[in-house]
């Protein structure tokens, strides 16, 4: 333990990999090989908290882990493996995780090659000055083409990959070489243990018993229990309760000092007080400046969450409150919808983040909810030269009062096998994408760069892309700011009454098609009732399309004698129960499924 305090024996690194390229398995192997955890305990201890991620087949974040490694060179090393989220939604978190490391393993699947997300994260690592060790994984596969993968790393990322380690996380090949390469090639940290404390929060989680647990990398100085610390962004002070390391279980230590990775607890109540990227310093001897790179996380994708049963609004509120203790990137504020009642407008880092939050509310907090279609924030320049932010269709002023509408745009990069180029270009263009560039990574693989509105991206673009490329496409995106667009608000009227849950914003050229798709879909979803129901799509006062839900024609059970009476009453009660669960818009009962399915409508018919 003591000699580990020497920074020369510490290596802090992360793994950059595309989903499915074997990051978790490789991490497992490293833990096993260093005896941090026995293979038998592996499943229980490491992966248990990650059911959600595992079910979705993606790893959002692994717990950091500290490995004690005795090298064949005779020295003992402390290796800290810090995970990076593998998704564009979490680009900021990635940057903070990278900032806690001196090096990264760039793991590339030997048969799949480099993917878009990998490039983005690798660039970021290079940008932050990390040493990068290319690893070609899954060489056990018959389809493995390690030379191609090396070539791609060279051609696409621009890194020399001739000496890339060939590995198989599955059978353990290359694991020793990786550990040795980490020691030899990744620089040891070189902070100053005697300088004022600067600790970077690269992640933080909420624990019911201990409050917020900050995952930190000590850049300079030292930290121990009892010390008064200052969170530099929020300017709040707390006494430290405990400091420790990840073994991978939380294991208290006396002190963390420059170069080390560990955790801090200080009875912090909310994650908002200990934000990722913030710098912790000694309250009595503060550093002169905070570490660079802090950014306030901003929601970019929004949607409404509503309880399925109106009475459950308080439960939803409590669940959201609790969830936010764990995820400070979620924002929420109350809103009301005619169709859905009381609920919340929630903001997320991206689509995946939104899905994860929804799943968590459902699974961890047992909250059934209706989520409205995701949308972005629009900026509107009014006729009187005012700028207003529109979160939802209802925020749009009348068409006459709008001078200009601006919407967020992204730069999109797509990696695909070249045979799909035509189809993907078509797809992106259909979604108002503007072509920027195209280059061949290899003769078989192409990188396309487009600019497109974020709103087009968040309505199932990813699914469409996958299905158009048989799953071979990989995507990355970054925000490039707000741009003016010719947008309109399309309202949906059910039996003459505006159904706000169904209105949407779209480009004026798409208004008819999408309005049509919406009313047709609603027609399928609204069951026939005792009268005919017109469903219309309109822009302002102008109806652009109309369909009718025909009135119910027959709904009666013939037999009703002695024993049938009770049975029949139960049947009617059930029917009534079903109707109660529907939302009433004017005289029309609309089933919950309509709201749910309508979320897909936009997407399906684009």
């Amino acid at each position, binding site marked *: 333990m003591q000699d580990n305090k020497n920074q020369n024996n510490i290596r802090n690194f992360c793994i950059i990999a595309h989903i499915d390229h074997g990051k978790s398995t490789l991490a497992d192997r490293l833990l096993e090989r260093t005896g941090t955890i026995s293979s038998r305990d592996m499943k229980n201890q490491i992966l248990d908290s990650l059911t959600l991620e595992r079910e979705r087949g993606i790893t959002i974040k692994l717990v950091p882990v500290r490995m004690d490694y005795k090298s064949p060179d005779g020295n003992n090393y402390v290796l800290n493996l810090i995970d990076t989220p593998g998704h564009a939604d979490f680009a900021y978190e990635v940057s903070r995780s990278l900032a806690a490391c001196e090096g990264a393993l760039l793991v590339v699947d030997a048969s799949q090659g480099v993917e878009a997300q990998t490039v983005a994260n690798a660039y970021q690592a290079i940008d932050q000055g990390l040493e990068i060790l290319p690893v070609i994984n899954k060489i056990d596969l018959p389809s493995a083409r390690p030379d191609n993968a090396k070539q791609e790393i060279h051609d696409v990322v621009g890194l020399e990959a001739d000496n890339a380690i060939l590995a198989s996380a599955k059978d353990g090949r290359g694991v020793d070489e990786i550990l040795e390469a980490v020691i030899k090639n990744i620089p040891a940290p070189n902070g100053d243990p005697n300088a004022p404390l600067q600790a970077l929060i690269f992640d933080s989680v909420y624990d019911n018993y201990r409050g917020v647990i900050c995952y930190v990398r000590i850049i300079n100085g030292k930290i121990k229990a009892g010390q008064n610390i200052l969170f530099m962004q929020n300017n709040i002070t707390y006494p430290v309760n405990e400091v420790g390391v990840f073994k991978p279980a939380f294991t208290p230590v006396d002190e963390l000092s420059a170069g080390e990775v560990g955790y801090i607890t200080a009875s912090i109540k909310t994650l908002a007080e200990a934000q990722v990227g913030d710098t912790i310093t000694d309250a009595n001897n503060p550093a002169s400046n905070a570490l660079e790179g802090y950014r306030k996380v901003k929601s970019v994708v929004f949607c409404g969450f509503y309880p399925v049963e109106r009475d459950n609004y308080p439960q939803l509120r409590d669940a959201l409150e609790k969830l936010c203790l764990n995820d400070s990137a979620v924002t929420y504020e109350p809103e009301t919808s005619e169709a859905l009642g009381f609920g919340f407008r929630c903001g997320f880092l991206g689509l995946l983040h939104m899905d994860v939050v929804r799943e968590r509310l459902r699974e961890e907090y047992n909250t059934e909810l209706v989520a409205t279609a995701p949308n972005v924030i629009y900026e509107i320049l009014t006729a009187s030269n005012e700028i207003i932010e529109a979160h939802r269709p209802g925020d749009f002023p009348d068409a006459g009062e709008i001078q200009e509408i601006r919407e967020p745009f992204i730069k999109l990069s797509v990696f695909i096998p070249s045979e799909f180029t035509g189809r993907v270009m078509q797809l992106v263009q259909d979604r108002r994408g503007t072509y920027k560039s195209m280059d061949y990574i290899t003769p078989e693989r192409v990188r396309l760069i487009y600019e497109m509105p974020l709103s087009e991206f968040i309505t199932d673009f990813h699914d469409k892309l996958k299905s158009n490329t048989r799953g071979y496409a990989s995507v990355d995106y970054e925000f490039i700011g707000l741009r003016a667009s010719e947008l309109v608000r399309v309202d949906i009227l059910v039996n003459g009454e505006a159904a706000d849950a169904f209105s949407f914003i779209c480009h004026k050229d798409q208004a008819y098609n999408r309005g049509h798709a919406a009313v047709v879909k609603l027609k399928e979803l609204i069951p026939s*009732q*005792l*009268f005919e129901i017109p469903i219309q799509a309109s822009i302002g006062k102008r109806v652009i399309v109309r369909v009718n839900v025909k009135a*119910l*024609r*027959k*709904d*009666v*059970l*013939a*037999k*009703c*004698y*002695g*024993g049938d*009476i*009770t049975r029949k*009453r139960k*049947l*009617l*009660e059930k*029917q*009534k129960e079903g*109707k109660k669960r529907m939302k009433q818009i004017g*005289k029309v009962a609309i089933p919950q499924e309509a709201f749910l399915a309508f979320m897909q409508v936009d997407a399906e018919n684009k």
Partner: protein
Amino acid sequence: MLKINKPASLYIHVPFCEAKCFYCSFYSIKGTEQDFLTWLENIKSQAQKLCARKIQLNTIYIGGGTPSILSLKIWRGLLNFIHDYFDVSTCLEFTVEANPNSLSRELLSLWKNFNVTRISLGVQSLNNDELKILGRLHDVNKALKAMELVKNFNFILSADLIFAIPGQNIRTWHNSLTGVINSGVDHISTYQLTLEPDTKLAREKNLTNSDLNKSGYYFYRYTQYLLPKKNFLQYEISSFAPENFECKHNLAYWTHKNIIALGESAAGYFEGTRYKISIEDPNKILLEKKLSRHDQAIEFAILNLRTKFGIDRHEFISRFDLETYNEIKNILSNLPNELFCNTSDKIILSQKGMRLGNAIWSELI
């Protein structure tokens, strides 16, 4: 414990069938003479348990199952018991259900002697393909003969017909309807085929109830069009008859009259309490939880709405209260006018309303 001591209608359930029809989910067993005997003994003890002697009967209905498969000996025993245990002098209608396959002169003449007035015959269809699909044991010829026989004995004759049978079309339905009318029936009950889980038809045919419902509309509408022209007025969702030939026993169900029920799985009613004879233990009478006053009123209204007599304001208020009547009227006034007949002191469903009964009643629940 329930003790019925007021005038009532009597329903006796005969849970025996020669074979199960492909669409039937009701409780029935094949049964031997010994089973019949046991059943009869159970009927007697159930009656003694459930009601006082010499209660005045308004109507009697012996249904099933297939009552006509009981032997003459059992029938004699049953009828003797009814005449002995109850007061039948006040009885206005005495119906027996029969199948064309098991009807005989001997039975008919026995029934006649014991004052049976009405035979309800399970004709179901006058098309052999349709009868086969339903798994009925008779064919068209047998059905026609049976109807003729019943008429020759001077009974009031009712025929059951089923619509929305796979393969059925509006012409074959027309033929079944006019066929039974030409055979001299006095009453027609029409039922839409429903696929009950655990029936042969539901298992074997690749059909759903919603498919049947779709075609059911056309058949039902046509029935509503055709039968009144032939003087068979729709007096209930599934019942058509000339004036004064309505089934009084069935009307008792729809107007909350007291019903004595005997025989396994039979369901009865006495002053707000519904009960059922247990199938597992024929000596057991299963009482249902009594509905609240308000729920009883709603149930009464819904049952009333099945018939062309509808909800009568005065009767409803005398049984329940004005407040509930107004509540019902209010709810229904929100629905399209065309679903109701234009009457001031009654609420009556129109033809269209009758087609949409479930949707209307569920508003009241």
